[in-house]
C-alpha cells in the first residue's frame, strides 16, 4: 500500500523535475499506455477474455478527442470524458459478436476488428482541423488544446499520471464488489455462474465496456500529448504487442500494467537513445518478450511480488 503511494508520489512530484524533455514525452506515453494495458489486463485476469484490439480502441479514443477538440469548445476534461464514454460504447458494440466466444476465437475476432480499424483509420485519417465530419484537410494541423492547468509537457505528464491513477483505481475497485465476484465465477465456469443467477452476458459486456473506457481515456490523453495522431500508429500488430506486454508485466495487478507501459514505450526509447540499430532492437525486444512469457507465468509483477514476499518473510 505504502509502496503504491510512494511510487505514484515519486512519479508525479520528483520525476518530471529531474528528467530531460524527451523523457517527459516518453513517460507521458508510457503512463497513457499503462492505462490501456490495464484495460487489457482487466479483461484477461478477471474473465480470461483476450482483447487484441486495445490499441485500435486507443486510436478510436484519440480520433474522437481530436474531432471534439476541433468541433467544440468544451474544456479538455469534458472532451476526454466524452471520448472515453464513446470509446467504451464502441468497445461494447465490438464485444457483442465476441461475447459468446472464448479463448483463441475471441482473441482472433478482436484481432480482425483491429485489422479493420487499421484500414479504416488509414483511409479516413485523424482529424487535423479540417471541415466536414472527418475533419481532415490537406493542411498543417490546427491547435490541439491541452488542459489549462497542464499546458507544458511537464505539467501534462503530471496531469496524465493523475488521470491514469484514477482510471486504474476505478477499475480496480470493481474487483472487490459484485462485478468482481461475478467475473470470478464466470471465469471459472459460465454455466456455474448462470446457475448462481449471474447474468453472464451483462457482466462480460460490462468488463469490455470498462476496458474500452480505459482505452478511450488513454486515446484522449494521447491526443493531448502528441497533439496530432497518425494512422500508422494503431495497426493490429501493436494491439497484439500490447496484450503480450500486459502478460509479460503481469495481469491483474496495477504494477503489471505499469511494467507493460514501460516496456511498450520506455524500453524502445532507451534502445533508440543508446543507439542500438532499430532492427536489432526489434530482435532484442522479441527475445525479451519470448523469454518473459516463458519464464514468468505470473508476469514480472508476479515475480517482483514473490520477491517482496520472500524478503518480508525473511525480515520476520
Amino acid at each position, binding site marked *: 500500500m505504502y509502496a503504491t503511494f510512494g511510487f505514484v508520489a515519486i512519479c508525479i512530484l520528483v520525476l518530471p523535475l529531474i528528467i530531460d524533455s524527451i523523457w517527459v514525452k516518453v513517460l507521458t506515453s508510457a503512463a497513457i499506455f499503462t492505462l490501456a494495458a490495464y484495460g487489457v489486463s482487466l479483461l484477461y485476469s478477471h474473465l480470461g477474455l483476450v482483447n487484441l484490439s486495445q490499441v485500435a480502441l486507443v486510436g478510436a479514443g484519440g480520433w474522437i478527442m481530436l474531432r471534439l477538440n476541433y468541433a467544440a469548445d468544451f474544456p479538455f476534461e469534458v472532451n476526454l470524458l466524452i471520448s472515453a464514454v464513446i470509446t467504451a460504447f464502441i468497445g461494447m458494440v465490438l464485444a457483442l459478436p465476441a461475447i459468446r466466444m472464448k479463448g483463441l476465437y475471441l482473441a482472433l475476432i478482436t484481432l480482425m476488428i483491429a485489422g479493420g480499424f487499421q484500414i479504416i483509420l488509414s483511409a479516413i485519417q485523424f482529424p487535423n482541423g479540417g471541415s466536414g465530419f472527418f475533419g481532415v484537410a490537406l493542411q498543417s494541423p490546427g491547435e490541439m488544446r491541452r488542459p489549462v492547468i497542464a499546458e507544458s509537457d511537464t505539467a501534462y505528464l503530471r496531469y496524465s499520471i493523475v488521470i491514469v491513477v484514477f482510471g486504474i483505481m476505478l477499475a480496480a475497485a470493481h474487483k472487490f464488489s459484485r462485478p468482481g465476484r461475478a467475473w470470478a465465477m464466470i471465469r471459472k465456469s459460465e454455466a456455474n455462474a448462470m446457475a448462481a443467477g449471474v447474468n453472464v452476458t451483462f457482466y462480460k459486456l460490462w468488463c469490455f465496456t470498462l476496458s474500452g473506457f480505459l482505452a478511450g481515456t488513454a486515446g484522449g490523453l494521447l491526443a493531448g500529448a*502528441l497533439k496530432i495522431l497518425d494512422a500508422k500508429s494503431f495497426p493490429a500488430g501493436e494491439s497484439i504487442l500490447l496484450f503480450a506486454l500486459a502478460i509479460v508485466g503481469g495481469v491483474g495487478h496495477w504494477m503489471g500494467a505499469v511494467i507493460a507501459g514501460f516496456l511498450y514505450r520506455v524500453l524502445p526509447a532507451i534502445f533508440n537513445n543508446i543507439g542500438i540499430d532499430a532492427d536489432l532492437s526489434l530482435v532484442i525486444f522479441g527475445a525479451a518478450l519470448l523469454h518473459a512469457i516463458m519464464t514468468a507465468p505470473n508476469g514480472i509483477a508476479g515475480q517482483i511480488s514473490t520477491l517482496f514476499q520472500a524478503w518480508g518473510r525473511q525480515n520476520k
Partner: protein
Amino acid sequence: AEPECGLNTGEKATGEPIVVGGINGNAPPGDFSGGTDAAAAYFHCVNDNGGINGRPIKYIVENDQWNPELAAQVATKLVKDDGVVALVGNGSVVSMAVNAKLYKDEDVMAMASACAISDCYENSNIVSSNQGPLPSGIGALKFAVEELGTEHAACIGFNIPNNGGWACDWAGKYMESVGKKSTALLMDPSAVDLNSVYLQALAEGVDTIMLMLPAGPALGILKVAEEQDGGDTFKWISPTPLYDPTIPAALGDYWDNKLYVNIELGPFNSDGPDNQNWIAVMDKYGEKEDRRDTFSQSGYLSAKFFVETLLKMDSAEINRTNVTKAIKGISGLTSDLLCGPYYVGDFDRHMPNHAGRMVVYSENEFKVVRDCYDIDSSYLEPIREQERQLRLIQ
C-alpha cells in the same frame, strides 16, 4: 577525386562544436536514411577541412523508426535537450507532420532532404531540397502528355491524404488544365493484391499508368504488368522513387525503353561538379552501407547549402536564432544537381526544387531523355510569387 568541403583547408576543426540535428526514418517499411547519411559524410568532411571557421559540426542523427510518437520524442530531444541550431538532411515521412509545429514554436529550421508528404512543403520552418511526389509526378505527366501522347492517365498512389491523395489530386488538376483525363486509383498501403490495381487501370481504360508509390510496391505492379505483358498496353511513368541504383537489377530487359522516370536531382553519373563532389565525399567519408540514391544527393545538397550559410556568419554568433535567420535568408544558390535556384525566404511554405529531368530505363540503366524542365501547376502559384519577391524570376 578529392572531395571539396567548406573552407577546404585540410585542417581539422577544433573549436567549440556547433550542434546540428537530423531525423531519419529507417525501419520497415522503408529506409529514408540516405539524406542524413550524406549530410553526416559531408559534415565529417567539413570538420576535417577547417570546419565552420574553426568550429566543428556535431551532427546528431536520430531514427524515428516510422513511429510518430518516437518522431515527436526524438525531435524534442534534439530541439530541446540537445539544443541544435538547425536540422539538416531530414528524411522521414512521419516526422514532418508531427513536428512542424514544434519547429515553428522553437524557431528552428529543418533543411530536409527526403520528403514525401504535403506537410513538408507547406510549413514555415521546413524546406526540402527534394521535390516530393507532387512536382515530380506532374513533371512525369507533362513529359508523357508532350512526348508519349498520353490522353488518360491513372495515378496509382497510397490512400493517404497528405501523400497519395495530395499528389494524385494535384496531378489530376494538371491533367485537367491541359485538357486530358486522369483517374486516381488509391490503394491501402497494406493492400496485398496488386494485380487488382493493375486490372483496375485496365478497366478504367487509361493509356498511361503513373506509379505514385515507393519503389517496392511500384516494382510489384511492374511485375504484375510484366506477367500480363502490359508493357506496351500502357505507357509507364513514375516520379523519382524508381530512380534508384538498385532498381535496374530488379527490372530486367522486359522494361527496356518502356519505363520513364522523372528525376528530382541530377543523374547519378553526371559529370557536374556537385555530383562528382557528392561521389567523392561519399567515397571518402561515407559508410560502405550508405545508400547512394536521390535522397543521398539531396542530403549532400542540404548540408552543403547549410555549411555555406554558416560560413558566412560570424562564428561566435552562431546560435539558433541567428542560424534560423540566416537560413531564411538563403536565396539564389545554385547547383548542377538542381534545375533551378535554391532559396528559402521567410515564407509559410517552401518548395525551391520543382523542375526536373526525365530518364528512360534502357539496357540496365537510366538514360536522360529530357533535361531540366519546369512544371506547370497552379500549386506553384504561391511559390512563383515567392520567387518573384526574391527576384529569382520576373
